[in-house]
């Protein structure tokens, strides 16, 4: 009965299910952090540095304090001066700068006042005397001797370094028939979530601090708050509100606004709210790392990869965030989706006086896939191989163990390639489209959650109510991707109830189980397994009561449609509610279950890069067709066809939303998005000028197709793997390859702007004597 995972006929799972919170959100009833209002609540504002690098000589807050309506003003010195951060070795954040600002926009002071306008006025009255320091913006410049130093403990501005070497790269290059090296460069890209960061802080009369905020990973925030405030985690409570889009970044960590809301609340005895403007969101840190990538690849004559050597320089900006892991991941993911028997990876993340970088959907896999799949296409052309064939020849297969120790269970990469070729009509298009129309292929891969050195296990708790519905709590947040729905579906599947009979509660550090939260595509697999276990435990408890009452064996009982049924004689059945009540009322039972996943001893050796980083890995392939205007260089994405092995899609509707969303973000990354900075100053800090693709930049739905290659991932709950990130990883290279196919212009630098494309076309015309 309980061993449902061998049975692939589902009652709830596998059916397209609308998100449970969709009506709330569509009707405007969902309460976001900015919707919170409390009696006596004050409004906070942050003062930001106007310099990319400066010493703070003095701060005079007296005029701000004297402004009527201002209740408190704080500076960095009001905090204990304890640095906080993600990885233990790179804790370099402060709630507010104390003596040095390292990027233009860094938080220097904060005000709480009776309304927003007064708070803004007060901010202008704070006088800061700065001693401007020399600044450095480019990672190569920042590494040179004599460059301005950002952090004393990091000579040469090296914020993180990682390297790994598997096999023997030099020997493999010596043997290779063909070797080429290319340089690629990517730009800073922002999350672009629609809800800016917002929070409300309260410090109650018992001395306990509570933060309501739109956090994706409330527990990470909880720990960081304790660190930076230097108080016991137990004295802090973090309550998640609805999250209006996350894509990692500031919603993953404690931000200066969070600390300031709490400290200002403590000082004033009132709740304090902060909401970033979109301008602040775009100016502060948290963005995708801009990278310089030197990629050298050696192959046999028939296109088999023998070795890859990658050197990577990431422009980290002023602080670490999760950056040490970011560059590690970039290297690890060279091992997927192609077999690379010999590989060497050397990466530096460099501090510069820019907004800092961290995680963003697809993390650093996106940049690597752009470089690698662009180059692979060039190799195929040189070796006169079909671009699909070179990918097939190198494709990772089920059961592979990669040189760095990834143990790949399911990996239907070949089938993804085949499906995309079919859907896109590849063979009739490649090389056969009219001039300035082109098609390109791109592939990638992702993992379903990472096993990190710190906390990586997920947990779930579930409790049955007397009406036959359940309360389900985990530490994973719904950030719009549909976690609430899919976790409810898993529980409903096990207990034979409806999706709406499961109440998925928001994370509250005081009430819900400990869990690292939502990031790295971990939730469906990690938390999903925990939820499944918890539901199975309740099912076991119920079966025991039902079996005694029905006089049958517990193992023979099945949970279907609110009933408990004897599999051997289906006429013998009893309503779930009846058993729940009987157990509760007559036997004093508590039907509750717990589950956890990911506590395995298996860990990664971050010094060598060896280890099985994730329980499951998923490949993706896509083809993009573009049309290029030869007189302006403007690109129109005509079609996009993708295929992914997300294991068994538990909620196909959500999976579709995720894969299309990931692809759309990558279209933006490839063609439009770019946080333009001149001497550390962001030139386009608004959605008027920071350009994300809108609906009219997308291919028509009829030409925007996605196919799930269904596999049964043994590690996944009911065979599932991740869906939210992998699908975006191949898209950028596919677009670059399509632009090349259309125009003959090969661009290794992002974004692929009309200007660069047009001048590329002109250069080719000149070379061919056409101009």
């Amino acid at each position, binding site marked *: 009965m309980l061993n449902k995972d061998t049975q692939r006929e589902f009652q709830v799972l596998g059916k397209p299910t609308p998100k449970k919170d969709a009506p709330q959100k569509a009707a405007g009833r969902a309460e976001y952090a900015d919707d919170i209002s409390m009696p006596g609540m004050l409004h906070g504002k942050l003062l*930001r540095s*106007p310099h990319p690098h400066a010493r703070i000589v003095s701060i005079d807050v007296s005029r701000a304090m004297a402004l009527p309506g201002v209740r408190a003003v704080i500076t960095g010195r009001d905090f204990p001066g304890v640095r906080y951060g993600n990885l233990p070795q790179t804790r370099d954040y402060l709630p507010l700068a104390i003596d040095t600002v390292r990027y*233009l*926009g860094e938080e220097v002071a904060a005000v709480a006042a009776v309304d927003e*306008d007064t708070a*803004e*006025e007060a*901010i*202008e009255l704070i006088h800061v005397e700065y001693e401007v320091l020399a600044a450095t913006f480019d990672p190569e410049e920042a590494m040179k001797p004599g460059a301005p130093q950002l952090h004393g403990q990091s000579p040469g501005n090296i914020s993180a370094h990682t390297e790994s070497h598997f096999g023997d790269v030099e020997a493999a290059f010596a043997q290779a028939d063909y070797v080429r090296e290319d340089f690629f460069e990517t730009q800073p890209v922002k999350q672009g979530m629609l809800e800016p960061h917002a929070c409300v802080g309260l410090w109650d009369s018992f001395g306990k601090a509570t933060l309501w905020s739109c956090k994706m990973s409330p527990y990470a925030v909880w720990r960081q708050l304790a660190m930076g405030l230097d108080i016991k985690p137990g004295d802090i409570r973090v309550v998640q509100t609805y999250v209006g889009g996350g894509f990692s970044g500031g919603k993953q960590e404690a931000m200066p606004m969070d600390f300031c809301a709490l400290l200002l609340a403590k000082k004033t005895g009132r709740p304090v709210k902060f909401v970033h*403007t979109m*301008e*602040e969101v775009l*100016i502060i840190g948290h963005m995708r790392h801009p990278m310089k990538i030197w990629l050298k690849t050696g192959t046999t004559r028939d296109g088999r990869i023998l070795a890859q050597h990658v050197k990577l320089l990431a422009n980290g900006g002023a602080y670490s965030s999760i950056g040490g892991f970011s560059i590690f991941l970039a290297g690890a993911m060279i091992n997927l989706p192609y077999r690379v028997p010999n590989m060497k990876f050397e990466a530096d993340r460099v501090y510069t006086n820019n907004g800092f970088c961290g995680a963003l959907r697809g993390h650093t896999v996106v940049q690597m896939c752009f470089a690698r799949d662009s180059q692979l296409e060039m190799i195929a052309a040189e070796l006169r191989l079909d671009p699909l064939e070179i990918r097939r020849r190198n494709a990772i297969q089920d059961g592979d163990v990669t040189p760095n120790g990834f143990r790949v269970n399911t990996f239907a990469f070949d089938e993804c390639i085949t499906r995309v070729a079919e859907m896109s009509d590849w063979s009739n298009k490649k090389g056969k489209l009219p001039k300035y129309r082109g098609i390109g292929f791109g592939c990638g891969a992702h993992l379903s959650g990472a096993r990190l050195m710190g906390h990586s296990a997920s947990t779930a708790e579930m409790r049955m109510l007397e009406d036959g519905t359940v309360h389900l709590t985990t530490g994973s947040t719904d950030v719009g991707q549909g976690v609430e729905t899919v976790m409810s579906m898993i529980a409903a599947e096990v207990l034979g109830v409806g999706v709406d009979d499961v109440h998925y509660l928001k994370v509250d550090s005081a009430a819900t189980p400990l869990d690292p939260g939502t990031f790295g595509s971990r939730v469906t697999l990690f938390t999903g397994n925990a939820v499944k276990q918890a539901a199975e435990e309740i099912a076991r408890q119920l079966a025991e009561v039902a079996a005694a009452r029905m006089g049958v064996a517990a193992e023979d009982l099945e949970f279907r449609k609110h009933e408990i049924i004897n599999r051997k004689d289906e006429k013998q059945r009893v309503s779930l509610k009846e058993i729940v009540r009987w157990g509760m009322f007559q036997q004093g039972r508590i039907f509750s279950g717990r589950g956890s996943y990911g506590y395995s001893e298996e860990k990664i050796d971050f010094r060598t890069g060896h280890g099985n980083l994730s329980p499951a890995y998923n490949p993706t392939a896509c083809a993009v067709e573009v049309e290029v205007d030869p*007189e*302006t260089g*403007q690109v*129109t994405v005509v079609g996009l066809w993708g295929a992914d092995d997300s294991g068994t899609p538990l909620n196909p509707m959500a999976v579709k939303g995720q894969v299309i969303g990931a692809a759309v973000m990558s279209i933006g990354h490839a*063609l*439009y998005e770019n946080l*333009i900075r*001149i001497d550390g*100053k*962001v*030139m*386009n*800090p608004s959605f*008027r*000028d920071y*350009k994300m*693709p*809108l*609906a*009219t*930049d997308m291919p028509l739905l009829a030409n925007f197709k996605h196919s799930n290659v269904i596999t049964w991932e043994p590690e996944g709950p009911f065979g599932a793997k991740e869906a939210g990130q992998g699908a975006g990883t191949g898209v950028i290279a596919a677009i670059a390859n399509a632009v090349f196919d259309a125009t003959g212009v090969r661009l290794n630098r992002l974004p692929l*702007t*009309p*200007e660069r494309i*047009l*001048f590329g076309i*002109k250069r080719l015309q000149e070379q061919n004597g056409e101009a």
Partner: protein
Amino acid sequence: MSTLMKRLPKFEYLGPQSLAEVCGMIAGTTRDEVLLLAGGTDAILQMRRRERTPRRVVGLKGVAELDFVRGQDDGGLAFGAMTTLQTLVASPLVGQRHELLQAAAAQIGGNELRNVATVGGNIAGALPCADMSPALMTLGAKIKLVSERGERWLALEEFFPEFGRTLALEDEVLAEISVPKPAANSAGAYLKFHDRHSMDMTIVGVAAFVSWDSESRTFAEIRLAYANGAPTVFRAHRAEALLRGQALSEEGLEAVAETACAESSPRTSWRANGEYRLELIRALTKRAIRQAWEKAVRSKAVTSKETSR
């Protein structure tokens, strides 16, 4: 010096109900002291960036006489400075007489913006990227400036002496825009380029307006004007002259595009390099003329069919 927007500076807000009141309020003041507020889609940002810190803001929203669209007896069109872009887009009268204006207005921002942004603000802001001015210039628009001293009419194409400036004196309000009746067999096109397809600020905008001589099958008239081709919106007179009286030809278009480039002096900014803007001027000039020509020729075909019926 900070890049961040600040709260609005403190100012006194005045809400006049008539043009005469407005003129009284700004008489004898300087532009630093008083700011006229139309839709505010530029002006508010300028104040929040402290590019403008007026002591007084005169809001024009309550001045009903500045918000109208009127057909003239001679077949021309007149509209008030406070007409929103959305009103232009939605007005059947504008559509009948000057489709080009609708084409230009419809490409500015999204609905939310067009509902508040005004045509007067678009012109008076004197920005080189403003999209209404090129279209209006090619239609031969005139503008009415009003002050306590009286009113005067200027050709729009003479209105912008340099970047960010107009010939309006400090006590003058832009009150009305008037566009003459279009010639027979005429049509226009406005091509606005930006990197993405969806709404965006203009990198280069080209307005072409032509009238077609059905006897000689040549350009009876052609006018070209550019957004972001130079520090101000401008008309490319030398380029136009090349085609007047000529038939449409590939060489003719090439020559016009070349001359238009020579008349332009686009700037390099983080949005685009000057070199690239020139390439766009070259390409879009030809396209805009061709589109306008084809429409004009078609309009002739339509009218003659109608008359023969």
